[in-house]
C-alpha cells in the first residue's frame, strides 16, 4: 500500500511539473530551481510572462509555477470571449497543439543544442566497454559525427549529431536506459570562425 501511494504522489508531483512546463515556458527561460522564495519566484514568473506576452501578442490562459512549498498560478480569461480580438480560437488551438507536441524537453530555445535519443534503448558512450568514449566534454564535433551508440532489441545503432558544436555536457550516463527524445548530449554552438580553426 505505502509504496503505491508514495509512487502516486510522486507521479502527481511529476505531473504538476510537466503541466508547468507545458503551460508556462514557451519562450522564456525556465526559472532555475530551487527558488529562494515566493516573491522572487513570482518576480521571475511575471518578468518572463511579460516577455512571452509581448512576443506572442496574446496572453496565455493559465500559468502555474510550483517549487517545493511555493506555488504560483495565473489564469487568463478565455480569449474567445475576451478583448483579445486578434487571435482566433483555431490559432490558439494550433499553438497549444504545437506546445503539447513539443516533447518532454520542450524548453525555451536556449543557446544550447542537443543530441536526442531517436528511440527507447540503452545509451553507450563508447563502441565497446574498453574503447574510449566517442566524445568528451570540451570536444568540438561536426555535423554527422558519431557521438554514441544506442542499443535497442540487441541492435546497436550509431548516434550521430546533426549539428556541430562544442560538447558541454554528457547528459545521459553510460549504459543506462533512455526514453524517446531524451537529451543525451548538450552542445554549445561554435562561431563559424572558431569552428573553422
Amino acid at each position, binding site marked *: 500500500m505505502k509504496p*503505491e501511494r508514495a*509512487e502516486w504522489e510522486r*507521479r*502527481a508531483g511529476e*505531473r504538476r511539473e*510537466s*503541466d508547468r512546463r*507545458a503551460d508556462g515556458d514557451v519562450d522564456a527561460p525556465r526559472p532555475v530551481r530551487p527558488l529562494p522564495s515566493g516573491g522572487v519566484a513570482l518576480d521571475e514568473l511575471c518578468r518572463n510572462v511579460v516577455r512571452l506576452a509581448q512576443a506572442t501578442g496574446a496572453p496565455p490562459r493559465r500559468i502555474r509555477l510550483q517549487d517545493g512549498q511555493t506555488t504560483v498560478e495565473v489564469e487568463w480569461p*478565455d480569449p*474567445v470571449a475576451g478583448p483579445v480580438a486578434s487571435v482566433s*480560437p483555431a490559432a490558439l*488551438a494550433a499553438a*497549444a*497543439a504545437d506546445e*503539447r*507536441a*513539443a*516533447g*518532454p524537453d520542450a524548453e525555451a530555445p536556449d543557446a544550447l543544442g542537443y543530441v536526442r535519443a531517436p*528511440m*527507447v*534503448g*540503452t545509451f553507450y558512450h563508447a563502441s565497446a566497454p574498453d574503447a574510449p568514449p566517442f566524445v568528451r566534454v570540451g570536444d568540438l564535433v561536426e555535423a554527422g559525427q558519431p557521438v554514441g551508440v544506442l542499443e*535497442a*532489441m540487441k*541492435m546497436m545503432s550509431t548516434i550521430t549529431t546533426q549539428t556541430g558544436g562544442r560538447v558541454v555536457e554528457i547528459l545521459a550516463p553510460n549504459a543506462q*536506459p533512455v*526514453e*524517446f*527524445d*531524451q537529451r543525451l548530449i548538450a552542445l554549445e554552438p561554435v562561431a563559424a570562425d572558431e569552428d573553422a580553426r
Partner: protein
Amino acid sequence: MFSTVLVANRGEIALRVARACRELGIRTVAVYSTADRDSAVVRFADQAVHIGPPPSRGSYLSVPAIIEAALQTGAQAIHPGYGFLSEDPDFAEICEMHGIVFIGPPAPVMQQLGDKAVARTVMAGAGLPVLPGSIGALTSAAEAKELAREVGYPVILKAVAGGGGRGMAVVRGADQLRLAYRETQAHARAVFGDDRLYLERFVEDARHVEVQVLCDTHGSVIHLGERDCSVQRRHQKLIEESPAPGLSPAVRDALRAAAVRGAAAVGFVGAGTFEFVLTPEHEFYLMEINCRLQVEHTVTELVTGVDIVREQITIAAGLPLSVRQEDVTVRGVAIECRVNAEDPERDFAPAPGLLAEFVPPGGPFVRVDTHAFPGWRVGPDYDSLLAKTSVWAPDRDQAIARMDRALGEFQVAGSGVRTTLGFLREMLAHPLFRTARHTTGLVGSRHEATGPATEEPARVG
C-alpha cells in the same frame, strides 16, 4: 503472478488494464507517445516510458520501442489492449523471444484466426456454421464472379487480413463485382499490406451477435454469454448490450455452444470473441473471431460479474479460470454506449479539442470508462473514443431508461469539441431499438462500402 506488467496501449483501455493490474497488486508500466504525455494512464501507472512520437507507427505500433520499454522496466508481461498490436502474432512471438509474456492467445492461434479465409475453413471444419462462399482466398475476380453466381447475390467481399469492419464491400450484382474486387483489393493492400480477398453470401437485415469466451491453460473453455452489437455506423459499433435481446433459449444455447466448440478446436487461450451474423430467421453464421479484449467487454462484465481483464492476466500467468461454466450466471441487462468526440452534424467527423468541462454521469448502476478529464486535450492523432458509458438494470427497458438518464447528465464542453451524446440518445429512443427489432442497418449506412483508409486500426470491438 507477474510483479510488473507493461500496458502497450493508450486511452481508456490502457487505464482499464492498469486498473486491473493495480487491483491484482501488479506494478504497472505505461508507455506513451509524445501526444499522450499528460494522459490519464501516465498519471495512474507506477511508471511511464516515452516511446515515440504521436504517429502510432513510431510509438504504439513500434515493436522495438515497446519491447525495449518492457526490458528497461522489468515488465514480465505485456497487455496489448485492443487495436494496435493486440492481434499481431509477430509481436506475440517477439515478446516470447525476449522472455516476456504476451497477454493474449498463442501466436499460432492468432496467426490462424487472423487470416479470415483460414479461420473460416478451420471453423467450418469444427462444425461451426459459415456462410456459403470461398474456401480459402480468392485468386482472381473471375473466380469471385463464378463463386458469386453459385452463392447468389448479394455477396460480400472481405480482405483476408481485415477485420474490425474494414476492408469489405457488399456487391449486389454481377456487373459490380469486378470493380468492387479491384477496389477492395487495392484498399486491402494499402491498409493491411495483404491484398487477398474472400467472398461470402451477404445477409440483409442481419444482427451482429457475438459470444465472449475465456480459455485457460488448464483446458477450461467457457463462455460469458453473448452481446448484441447491431447498432453500427459504417461497421463501427456504437451501442452494445448483453444478453442479446429476443433470442430463443435454443438459439442462445446454440450460439454459445458453437463459440465454445470453436475455441476448443483451435486451442484458444485467453479472452476471445466469436462474432456471428444473425439472420431475420435467427439462423447464425460465424463472421470472424477476435483474439483480444473487445471495447464492449464491459457489458459482459456487468451481467456476469466476471472481470475479463483480470482473467486475461491470471490466465497468462498460468492460473486456472476463477469461474467454472456453471458459476456463470447472466443477471439483468447491460448496455454500453460509445461516446465519441465526433460531430454527428458533419458526418461524424472527429471533433477534437480541449475539454473545458467534463463531468461523466454517476449514481446507481452506471459505469464510465474514460481517459478524459477536465483539461485533457482530445487530440487528432488517434481514434475519437472519449468515454464508454455502461449501465446495468434488471431488464432492458430499465436499462435503456437508465442509459438515457446517464447520457443526459454527461457534460462535455470545450472549444471545437462535439460528441455523439445526442445521437446516441436518438438511437436509444428509436422504436426499432426500443423493441429490439433493429439490425445493423439501423443507422442507415449498412450499404456503404469500405470507409476511408485511415492510419489507425478501427476499434470496432
